[in-house]
């Protein structure tokens, strides 16, 4: 097999720079566990900051350095986003740690008529996402990873050629634990070439099985097991906010970032949704969850943004928000009919948009619609329903239906003449409202057409009027 490894050395910083293009000064990401620099911007490098420096040293070198705390959650979410994007151009993808993606090149060479074509497309795709990356290729993911971490940035047509570059790579670029690396350094082994040249039997006497397995992978003998990435059947993105946001409307610009990704995700798959779920992580309180509903499923960024802004106007935060997650799991096939310019459909679209606005402003509990229920019993035919509840399609009405149905049937008191019927409804045994009635259309002396029924005690009632 032939693997490409993409190493993203500063994923969290890349996202931060996308969110804050105005910040041009030095920026570093600090690993909270030991307060050392793990990611840094070009400006920080120019200022003399180096990876692994302590927080005090960084501030001493450049007092105005922007400090961001490292978040594995944030990086994993970013990496998943990237893998999802790459999934559109490559099939066998493996997510490695929180900052690497491996792609199986073997099937792609034929598909793209050469690896150069695929690499050009891959670079274009990643550059459009404004992420920094290094890459390398080899017979196993481990070889490609070492080459990518050594900034080789080459893809060979034959995976075996990569071994030439591998020999010169330092042990620091490998995944060997620090302790073992130091042990090897002490006996003068500093490059992979030196290590690989040693007989495995000898190494096996001194190191554990994990190291042996890793070395076998580096020699290209055996690829350790891996699990392929499959995009989730839902959209979910976590976003760490650059600073705690105190008022809900101010969340709008950050939500816009994840919303844009969500809409792009839906549009590419011709999907739509009528529900977006947000989870806001509040600094001093429990997470705040809320939903935004549209009247009809769609994937239009501007319309969703408007509904979210309406919702945010109403939203009260208990304490400042530090991060947010957008989840969208109620996906349906996008129906372009909803947006047709034909009059009837267009007015329905407008109606749905209005419904979406009402839902956003008043909440789903306060907005009800009237629906006709598929039911023989006339008392239950018309019911109030939640706008989001999808009622089962009504089968065609069996008999006549009056335009005005009375909530409470009234005793029939006048002389009438039957013109239609009987329609016997004897059902509803399964709940507390069994019905046994014979329905008729009756004509009064004044020409009124009544919807009357006779119950099993032979009493007559008026249940509705025809127009």
């Amino acid at each position: 097999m032939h693997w490409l490894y993409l190493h993203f050395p500063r994923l969290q910083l890349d996202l931060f720079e996308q969110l804050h293009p105005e910040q041009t000064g030095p920026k570093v990401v600090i690993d909270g566990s030991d307060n050392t620099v793990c990611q840094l911007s070009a400006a920080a490098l120019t200022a003399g900051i180096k990876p692994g420096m302590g927080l005090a040293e960084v501030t001493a070198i450049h007092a105005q350095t922007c400090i961001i705390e490292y978040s594995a959650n944030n990086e994993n979410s970013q990496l998943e986003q990237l893998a999802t994007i790459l999934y559109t151009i490559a099939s066998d993808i493996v997510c490695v740690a929180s900052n690497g993606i491996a792609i199986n090149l073997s099937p792609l060479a034929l598909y793209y008529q050469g690896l150069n074509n695929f690499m050009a497309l891959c670079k274009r795709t990643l550059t459009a996402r404004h992420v920094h990356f290094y890459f390398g290729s080899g017979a196993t993911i481990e070889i490609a990873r070492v080459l990518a971490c050594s900034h080789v940035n080459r893809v060979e047509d034959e995976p075996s050629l990569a071994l030439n570059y591998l020999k010169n790579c330092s042990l620091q670029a490998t995944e060997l634990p620090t302790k073992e690396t130091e042990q090897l350094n002490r006996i003068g082994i500093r490059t992979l070439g030196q290590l690989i040249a040693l007989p495995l039997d000898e190494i096996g006497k001194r190191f554990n099985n994990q190291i042996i397995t890793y070395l076998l992978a580096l020699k290209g003998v055996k690829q350790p097991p891996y699990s392929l990435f499959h995009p989730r059947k839902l959209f979910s993105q976590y976003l760490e906010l650059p600073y705690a946001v105190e008022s809900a409307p101010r969340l709008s610009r950050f939500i816009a970032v994840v919303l844009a990704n969500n809409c792009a995700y839906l549009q590419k798959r011709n999907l739509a949704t009528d529900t977006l779920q947000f989870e806001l992580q509040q600094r001093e309180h429990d997470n705040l969850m809320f939903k935004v509903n549209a009247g009809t499923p769609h994937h239009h960024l501007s319309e969703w943004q408007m509904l979210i802004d309406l919702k945010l106007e109403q939203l009260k935060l208990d304490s400042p928000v530090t991060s947010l997650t957008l989840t969208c799991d109620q996906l349906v096939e996008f129906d372009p009919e909803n947006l047709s310019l034909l009059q009837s459909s267009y007015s329905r679209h407008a109606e749905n948009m209005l419904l979406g606005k009402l839902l956003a402003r008043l909440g789903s509990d306060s907005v009800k619609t009237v629906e006709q229920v598929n039911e023989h019993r006339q008392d239950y035919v018309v019911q109030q329903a939640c706008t989001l509840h999808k009622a089962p399609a009504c089968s065609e009405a069996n008999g006549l239906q009056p335009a005005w149905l009375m909530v409470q049937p009234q005793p029939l008191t006048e002389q009438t003449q039957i013109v239609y019927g009987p329609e016997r409804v004897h059902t509803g045994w399964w709940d507390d409202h069994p019905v046994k009635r014979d329905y008729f259309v009756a004509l009064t002396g004044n020409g009124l057409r009544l919807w009357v029924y006779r119950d099993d005690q032979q009493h007559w009632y008026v249940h509705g009027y025809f127009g």
Partner: protein
Amino acid sequence: MFAELVCQSNFSFLEGASHPEELVNTAAFLGYEAISICDECSVAGVVRAHVEIKANGLPIKLIVGSVFQLAPDLRVCLLCPDKTAYAELCRIITNARRRSEKGHYALSEWDLKSVKSCLAIWLPAYNDNDRQWAEFFAKFFSERCWIGVSRLLNGNDNAHFAAAMSLSEEFCFPLVATNQALFHHPDRQHTQHVLHAIRTRSTVADLGRDGLPNQERSLKPLTKLTRLYPKAWLSESVSIASLCQFNLDELKYQYPSELVPDGYTATSYLRHCVETGITKRFKQGVPEAIRETIEKELALIHSEQFEYFFLTIYDIVQFAKKQGILYQGRGSAANSIVCYCLEITAVDPRQINVLFERFISKERNEPPDIDVDFEHERREEVIQYIYAKYGRERTALAASVSTFRFKSAFREVGKALGLPESLLGYWLKQFNLRDRTLGWQSQLQELGIDQDGRTVKQLINLTEDIIGFPRHLSQHVGDFVISAGPLYELVPVENAAMAERSVIQWDKDDLESLGLLKVDVLALGMLTAIRKTFSLISERYQQDISIPFISAHGNDKQVFNAICKADTVGVFQIE
């Protein structure tokens, strides 16, 4: 006087809500002249109705028929006035079923055009296409078509009556009253709703307007019918019934003629085969007593005309013998000397004391019973031989009717009533069905569930109702029916779930009730084990042994001693 001509039993799976037996009993009780069991594209329920009428001496005529849906707006019921019409109906059902996957059918217009003998009750949809279909029936069912009119109290009855009368006048189709009954008693409407919900995988509450609105599709007393329909329409049903003279007892099974070589009759060929067998089986000469029994058995076989049955099994086991497939005949008729001579069984009758009366009894009026077990790994070769020899048109497996048992009935009714599956599963786990002192109903109460609660009461009653209701037809493990002519003229054939297998619409009890013969081709894993043992013995000790060789040695004391010590681990069967 009235005859219900369109009536579906619960063999219209998950639609009809009464057993065929219940329908004929109720119809007889109500004083109907006749009743037609017309399941949808099926005659699976008619034998049970026929047996019930015969067993109880019910004063009612059974008419065989079937209803079909062709296109959304054509529903027609075909009735069989005579045996030719019956063969025709079976052919149509077979064609419609074979075109479709198991459990479905696809009738074509051509099928209806090819009907020359069946009577048609057309049930109009009362829409714009009625005239087109009326012209169709006028052309292809001239003088054999009636319009079935039903008062279902759906509000449109008067309009439908008027439309039917207009069609009748224009196309000269007589009108006949029918309730299109789906159940024998109005109370079964609840069961019908539940079955409908099971069929559509919904709940009764969600059926809405698709469910029956009332209880009108039941068998009604004559007094009520006279108020609902004009007298002429009721009398017409009796006139149609009088045209239908076909009785299932007329069905005669014809064995394939190729079993008997030229120059022989079935009797003489069977005797020839037995005599050949005698020389093989009784090399020392046949004892007088055995000869007497053979003659007695052959005379009985001749008087009951079972020669073909024995010859069919003889033919099959001869094939197995040639192929080296181990087999073993069993069943009451298998314990006969004729079967021993025909090499169907390997048990020497001199060593076992079998009552001759167990063989075939005239008094029992049952077909002979011979089951043949074959090695389970090679039974398919025998089945393929039968298909190859007699052709798929003349061979099919008997059906096995899958019915609702307690657990499935309880679960399905519960789901139809809207109870959560997890709860039903929990309740089912708590039942101890082996407890004969405490029924499941009482056990339900012990679980702390209020039995007087509406839903629980309904669950109990409806579960009891549908236990035993047929769900679908599946294939019997090995009952083959082989006929002289195309099998579909005797009984409809439909596709089984297994590829390249077809089943008839009757199960083994139905076949027995009508006196139709079947051949049991069963699979037995132990025979495969025995064959493998023989191979190992042959390989290791260079000694060829066979089942007759072992049987000929009689009882082995060492075996009995082992059994007495309960040293029977791995023993499959002790008789």
